[in-house]
């Protein structure tokens, strides 16, 4: 049924820390790896080794440059996967019932055997979180690794999304955002986590933690600090020495 549930028992989702993400794309690769080998149609690539490669990904990392009024610009790496919205517009547009939001944990999924590949759900998502697989002709999206988080065949520490498990910087956190006591909810409260495009009214479950100010980006000349030892550390003779110095002087004479 593609009407949305009134409410869900839990709100499982991700908290993404823009302060610590180093933009390594490890989550992109682990996501593609896990989701190609497990639930549903594999995530295909087209012309992978040719001139115009492209493929299906459930998680992509953008990079943005933020230029403040004063001071140095900051580079922010920005991972984006499905935000498992509470008011998911992608679910209600689906004509077949293939797209749905689970009552028990709020995960938004696609039942691939019902999907006719009309693409409307991808049109309805403001975040670009759904991609039509060109080989399978069905809609693919982040499953919140539903086949890992409840999977008792996996060791306990692996029962979390592949992207979260992989991230070397600890920039992705998984948990129940419906429970104010959960670690992820605490993190969001403490760091002032935000929704993406709130004006779209999708009420995303996933939250983004804004980057902290990089107070050490500025050198002493920018910050106006005076270091009393600095003059002693300045290079005395910046000309080359040894063989290079001799070469330099000889060439000068020619």
């Amino acid at each position, binding site marked *: 049924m593609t009407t949305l549930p009134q409410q869900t028992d839990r709100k499982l989702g991700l908290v993404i820390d823009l302060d610590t993400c180093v933009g390594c794309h490890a989550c992109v690769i682990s996501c593609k790896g896990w989701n190609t080998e497990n639930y549903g149609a594999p995530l295909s690539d087209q012309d992978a080794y040719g001139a115009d490669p492209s493929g299906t990904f459930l998680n992509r990392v953008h990079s943005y440059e933020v230029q403040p009024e004063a001071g140095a610009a900051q580079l922010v790496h920005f991972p984006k996967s499905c935000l498992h919205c509470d008011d998911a517009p992608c679910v209600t547009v689906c004509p077949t019932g293939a797209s749905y939001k689970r009552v028990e944990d709020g995960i938004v999924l696609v039942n691939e055997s019902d999907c006719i590949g009309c693409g409307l759900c991808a049109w309805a998502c403001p*975040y670009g979180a759904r991609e039509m697989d060109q080989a399978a002709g069905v809609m693919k999206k982040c499953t919140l690794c539903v086949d890992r988080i409840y999977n008792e065949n996996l060791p306990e520490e692996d029962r979390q999304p592949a992207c979260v498990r992989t991230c070397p910087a600890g920039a992705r956190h998984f948990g129940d955002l419906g429970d104010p006591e959960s670690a992820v909810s605490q993190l969001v409260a403490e760091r002032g986590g935000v929704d993406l495009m709130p004006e779209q009214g999708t009420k995303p479950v996933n939250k983004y933690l804004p980057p902290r100010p990089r107070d050490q980006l500025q050198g002493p000349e920018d910050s106006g600090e005076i270091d009393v030892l600095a003059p002693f550390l300045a290079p005395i003779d910046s000309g080359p020495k040894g063989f290079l110095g001799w070469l330099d002087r000889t060439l000068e004479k020619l």
Partner: protein
Amino acid sequence: MHPAPSVILFSSLSGMGFGLLAWLGIGLPAVTGWVAFVFFALAYLLAVGGLIASTFHLGHPERALKAFSQWRSSWLSREAWASVAALLTMAAYGAGLVFYDTRLWPLGLLGAALSLLTVLTTAMIYTQMKTVPRWHSVMTPLNFLSLSIAGGALLAGQVTAAMVLLVLAGAVQIATWWRGDRALAASGSDIATATRLGEKGSVRAFEPPHTGSNYLLREFVYQIGRKHALKLRVIAITLMVLLPLLLLLSPVFHHLAAALAVLSHAAGVLTSRWLFFAQAEHVVGIYYGKR
């Protein structure tokens, strides 16, 4: 948005077909027998032909029947129901006219209403997309309906009505463009709200996720031909409204002029529908620093 030929053909042709069915439903022209057969055949060719074209862009057309299941929430599902209901009702009504020389008035009126409802549901599929500010407006259904009714009048040979309705449809079309050009800026979505980094400074897309293209860029960030938009708008209005009007007003009005008027109108509607997609900016483009 990517202007898929199948979808453009579908919405233009079936719009005209259902428009003609609506006129036939209210008994204008009051045809029976063979003449009725020709009118109905034309309407069905357009309406059903368009519907079939629309299945070409599906990833799994063989599962199309499943699309009837979610009429409670989905406009695409409602469109499926409305179109089948309209086509069946009008088939029964048409059979009465063609084979028994009888006009079943209630059936005709119901069929006319269902035909227009089908056009409305088609328009609502686009209108509901908050992600495409250019479409998310009452102007979209007005645009689709006014074109469908005017095109139907032209096909039904209702000369006076067609002239008035063409002018109306043209005015609605220009208003739709005028509003559409301001829609993205008015939507409030920009790179600052998309990344929520706007409070820290001005945000610029520095590097996309991949060096290659992807489904999202191909489907939603279609920019080719936008630079010709103004020219194409002039062409669309000329073909859709002005030329048919001139032909209808010409003193030597005969079947050839009427046929030319219909063809010109159809070409104009196709151009306008192409622009409807090609000019539509999806907010996901913002994440890629594009529009």
